[in-house]
Structures are given as C-alpha cells and as structure tokens.
C-alpha cells in the first residue's frame, strides 16, 4: 500500500433509523421524528435517531426521550425496531459488496469501501465513479439517501461525509487535504471528543490547522505517545489504517434499561434470561464460543456493578450460560431498586479453529 495512491469510499446513510421508519410511514415525511426506546416519550429510553427536522430543535442521539419531548413537544416518537433496521442494513451492505469484498461495516448505517484496480487504472477516478453509482443505487433500490465521501484514506473519507451531510457527495483529493482541514474546528477530527477538545482549547489550539502546526513532541507530552501521535497524523490528514472487511469481535453483549426501577428478583432474572438467550443466539449464529460471562447491574442511583465468571470450556449453549448468569445474579444485592441490567459474553473463540480441543458429542 505504501507509495501507492489509495482510494477509500465512506458511505453514511442519512438519519438511518428514521429514514427506514419513514419508508413505511410516508405521512411523517418532513416532520420532526424521533426513534428511541419503546416510543413513549414519558418512558426512560434515549433517542436512538432523530430526523433532520427534529435535530433542528437540538435533539441528538443519546439524549433522554423526556428531554427531547421538552425540546420539541410536537415531535413524533417511534419505538426502535432493530430487526427492521438490521434487515435494511444488510441490503445496504449487499450493494457495497457487489463492487468489492473490501467493505468494512461501521455500525448498521456506515461503511468503508477500499477501491482496488488494475495498475494502469486510476483508483481515485474509479472510486468516484463507483461512489456515484452506489449513491444512486441506494436511492433507487432502497429508497433512502446516503452521503458519500471519497478520499485517499478512511479518516478523510469519513470527514468528507461529515462535511457533506445530508444527501451529499464530496471528494477530498490529496492536493485538497491541507485546504480542507486548515480551518476546521478540531472537534470535527476523528478521535477528538469532548475531553480532547477541551484540553486542546486549553493549549490554545482551536483549528485542525493549528493542531497540524503543533510540534509532535508537544502533543506527545500532553496526550501520551499513542494519542499524541494520532492527533499529529490526523491533523495532517494522514491515516494508514486499512479497510478491514470484518472485525473479530472481542465480546457480545446485550443490556436493557427498565421502564421503572425494580426490586423484583423474578422479573430481573426473567429479563436477564432473555438477554442471555439473545447473546447465546448471536454466538451460535456467528460461530463463536465464550468463556467469560459478565452481568452488569445499574442501581437507581447510577451506581453500576459487574460480576463475572470464567468457565473452563468455552460454550455457546444457553443452558451452560444461564447456569453461570443465574449464579452471578444471586451474588448481587437486589434489595436496592435496579435501573439497568446487561449480559456480556467475552473471551470469544471461533468454533472449529486450528488447535481447538474437540469434545465428545454426547447427543
């Protein structure tokens, strides 16, 4: 890859959950629509997605539904239908995979595509043509809109879509990099969150251009080697990370926030059983076995605890998993009201991999 020009396409579906909902509820188009929790703004769920109309009221994902209701009393609230979005997401990914295997999904609604081509072809030109086709096919076949960015790496491709949203198309060429980045606020840069932004401001660095001019040593001193180097490279538009078609997961988990805080142990166990069932199903579907199981309990006062146990033989069996989870539940204090529970399986190993101990099949 070194020395060669890369071409990466980033595709980001616009307000994905909401747009998928609007496909079947056409009357809601142009209105502030919010998807979150079970769709009841009095309940305690959070906003999963908001239409652009709703975003104008300052609503963003992660915000409590009740707060969203206060900000925009006229908004329409819909429950999350994850299965539906997953299905739509698969169709979206299928379109991308028709062009190349080098597709890295990033959540349900985003993906990177690495463009490869014959030596005599220009990958960048090919990427631009392909990106236009992808955008058009998403509109025609899925009846959804996406913003598409083309750039020499993942960092810049994602920045391009970020800048062109919604329903946009943007190309950042090698020679444009400095001009595009220079005036941007640092927060726009991938990897710069609220905390980093604050610390950069403290150092008098507001724009990406200023960050790029800050000596590397300086950044390493304030942010440590890894993070400092990353900021330095990103501010110059440098990103060598490859498009990885598939991420080996480290863990699989499910959690749920209760409608109302509860102390009902039977109910808590019932919910945890359902969550364990989901995790077991995912493990089996994706061909993994897990060794460590963790439960997470968040109390009414947001105090959060976890309890975990590691078994000798990795498993994907619901029975085995539930035995462990049930025992973990018995070890936590359930006399205080509980707000959220979760189950996590980690220490994953692929089934049927080299060096894996085979077991008897006792039927």
């Amino acid at each position: 890859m070194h020395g060669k020009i890369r071409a990466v396409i980033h595709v980001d579906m616009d307000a994905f959950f909401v747009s998928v909902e609007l496909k079947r509820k056409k009357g809601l188009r142009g209105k502030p629509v919010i998807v979150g929790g079970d769709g009841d703004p009095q309940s305690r769920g959070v906003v999963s997605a908001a239409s652009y109309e709703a975003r104008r009221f300052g609503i963003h994902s992660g915000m409590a539904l009740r707060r969203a209701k206060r900000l925009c009393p006229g908004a329409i609230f819909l429950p999350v239908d994850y299965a539906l979005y997953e299905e739509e997401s698969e169709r979206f990914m299928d379109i991308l995979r028709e062009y190349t295997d080098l597709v890295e999904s990033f959540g349900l609604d985003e993906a990177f595509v690495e463009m490869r081509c014959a030596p005599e072809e220009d990958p960048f030109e090919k990427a631009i043509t392909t990106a236009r086709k992808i955008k058009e096919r998403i509109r025609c076949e899925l009846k959804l809109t996406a913003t598409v960015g083309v750039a020499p790496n993942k960092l810049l491709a994602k920045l391009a879509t970020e800048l062109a949203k919604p329903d946009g198309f943007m190309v950042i060429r090698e020679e444009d990099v400095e001009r595009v980045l220079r005036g941007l606020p640092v927060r726009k840069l991938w990897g710069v969150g609220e905390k980093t932004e604050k610390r950069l401001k403290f150092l008098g660095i507001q724009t990406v251009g200023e960050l790029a001019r800050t000596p590397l040593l300086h950044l390493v001193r304030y942010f440590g080697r890894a993070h400092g180097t990353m900021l330095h490279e990103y501010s110059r538009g440098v990103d060598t990370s490859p498009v990885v078609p598939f991420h080996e997961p480290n863990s699989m988990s499910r959690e749920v926030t209760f409608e109302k805080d509860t102390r009902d142990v039977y109910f808590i166990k019932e919910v945890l059983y359902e969550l364990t069932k989901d995790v077991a199903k995912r493990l089996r579907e994706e061909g993994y076995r897990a060794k460590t199981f963790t439960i997470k309990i968040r109390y009414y006062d947001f105090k959060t605890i976890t309890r975990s146990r590691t078994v000798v033989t990795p498993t994907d069996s619901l029975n085995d998993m539930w035995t462990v989870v049930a025992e973990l539940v018995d070890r936590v204090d359930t006399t205080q009201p509980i707000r959220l529970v979760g189950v996590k399986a980690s220490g994953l190993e692929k089934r049927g991999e080299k060096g894996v101990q085979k077991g008897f099949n006792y039927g």
Partner: protein
Amino acid sequence: MKITVDKTELVKVLQRMQGIVEKRNTLPILSNVLVEEANGGITIMATDLEIFIKDMCPADIDERGSVTVNARKLFEIIKSLPEERVDMKITEDRMAIASGKVKYNIMGIPAKEFPAFPSVPEDSLVRIDQNIFSEMIDKTSFAVSTDETRYNINGFFLQKDDNNIRMVTTDGHRLALIKKEYDNIPVDTAGVILPRKGVVELRKLFEEEGSFFFGISERNATVKKDTTIMNIRLIEGEFPDYKQVIPRENDKKVVAPRVELMEALKRVSILASDRIKGVKFSFSPGRLVLSSSNPDIGDVVDELAVEYQGEELEVAFNARYFIDVFSVMEEERVFMEFKDSLSPGVVRPEGSEDYLYIVMPMRL
C-alpha cells in the same frame, strides 16, 4: 457438659473434618463442627450440606450438652495444647477448653441450628475392599470435569454391569473408564454420580487401615469405618451416555513403552502453549514422531520406536491428557488405537479391556 478427652484422639477426628467444612462463607454455621455427647464419648460432626461426616471420640462425660464451634480454630487449638488430657466445658453457645495451665474460652453457635445428619441405613451397608475402590478412583479422578456449569459430570459415575462395577469420569474432552469384578456392591445398572469433593474425602479416608462398609440410598452414598460415618449427597442429574463415545472402528493400533512415551510428551509439551498443551503425534511404521511449535518460542521434535504397522497418521492431542493417564498406569507397555485426525483415540493397558481411556484430538 463437662468432658475429659484424649488430645491425640481428638486431633485425629478433627483432622478428618477439615476438608469438609465449608470454606466459602455462605452460612457461618457450616464453618463449625458440632460437638455433642454420645454413648461413652462425644460425637463430632461437620458438613457443607453435601458431605456429612460424623465421628466419635471416647471421653468421660459429666453432664449432657452440645454446641458448635469453628472447626479450624478448634483443630488448631487442640493440636497446640501442652498436655494429653483435655478438659472441656460446654454451654449452649460457648466452649471452654483447658489443658495444663492454658484455658480457652470460645464462642459458638447453639447446636440446634446445625443441619441434621441424614438418616443412615446402617443394616444395608456392605463390606467393601477399599484398595479396589482407591485404585478405581486414582485411575479416573483426573478426568472429572471441574467446570461447575456442567454439574452432571462434576463427579464419578458408579454403575453395576453384570458381576462388575464400573467407574466412569469425563470432562467432555476425555473419558476414563475402569471395570472391576465385584458383585456385592449396592449399586444398580442405572448407576449413581458421586460428587468430586465427596470422593476426594472418601479417598483420604481409604488411606486408613480398617474395615469399610458402603451403601447407597435414594439420594446419598454412605461409608462407614469404625466410628466414622461419611454421607455424600449424590449428584442429581443424568450422566452422559458414555458408551456411545467409545470408538469401535479404530483400526490403527500402536503399542508403545509407557514411561518412555510419557517422558517424551513431557519434553515436547514444554514448548506447547501454557494451558492447552497441543502436541502432534505422527505415526509411521515402527516410529512415532512427537512435535510441537509455539509461535513465540520455537519448535521441538522428538521420536521413539513403537510397534505400528499401519499407514501414516497425523493427529494432535493435548499432551497433558496422555501424561495424566500414563502416570497412573503400572504396565510397561500401553496399547493405543486411532482412526484419523478428527476421531477419538483410545489408550489401555496391553491385553486388557478393563481400563479404557478415550481422548478427543485437537484440530491440526
């Protein structure tokens, strides 16, 4: 209650209790032993609710009474006493211990809170040969599953089979089966599962000289030796149908020198990864090559002469599984049977079907 008791006797009895008292602090009283008067002595009892042990210690008794006190502390105290004569005074929740000039005053929990010892059908117990049982336990105990989520294999399956008694253990990757001719054992063909911890305690008891009596009731196994009675709650559950995993079509037969092969496996497994000691067995006529490689350290090859006439075969196993079985066998030569790289291998002493060990391979 006032008691005078012999230190040596009491230490011996308390020693037996130590492995059984509950170490996890679930119910405080389970960390205690119960001391109460009995005919011509005192009875001492301990339990973790799965194993109950009861023993007697001759003593001179003045008044009646009983109490429970911490098992560990009592053991340490009695062991440390300066004189052979030990005087005790028991009230409802206290025990005073005096020997020579030393006086202990220990807080306890009233005896009425201690779990009741299960009733023991003493007349249905039969005499057993503890040496046979000890051998059966030793040759199968390493294959018992320690994965608590698979409770039905966390123990020893004991089953009657014509005039034989069988003991079977498995952890899902390997299986050990031993058969002994024995007809007066009170176990039926349906079999029972004895929990691992109980059998470990039983095995310790078998180290002692004396006559042992054994019985199975609906939910418990009972062993009695002189005044010691141990009662083990059976594992409720179904032992897997182990007969279906015994290979019948392993046509590649190997005879190998046991100790030599075991030593070679130990050498080769040094480089295998820490937990799973994967070693490749490559058989060719007259020869077995063992090899292992570790991406971080390097690789190793070893070789030994074996009796083998079949076609070439490569199969990988966890070396520890073989070392475990070779170290409990006495025979000079071992017999091994294989089929292919994905099917289970069988190990047994040359010329005998009474001890069988089945191991699943690892993927090459």
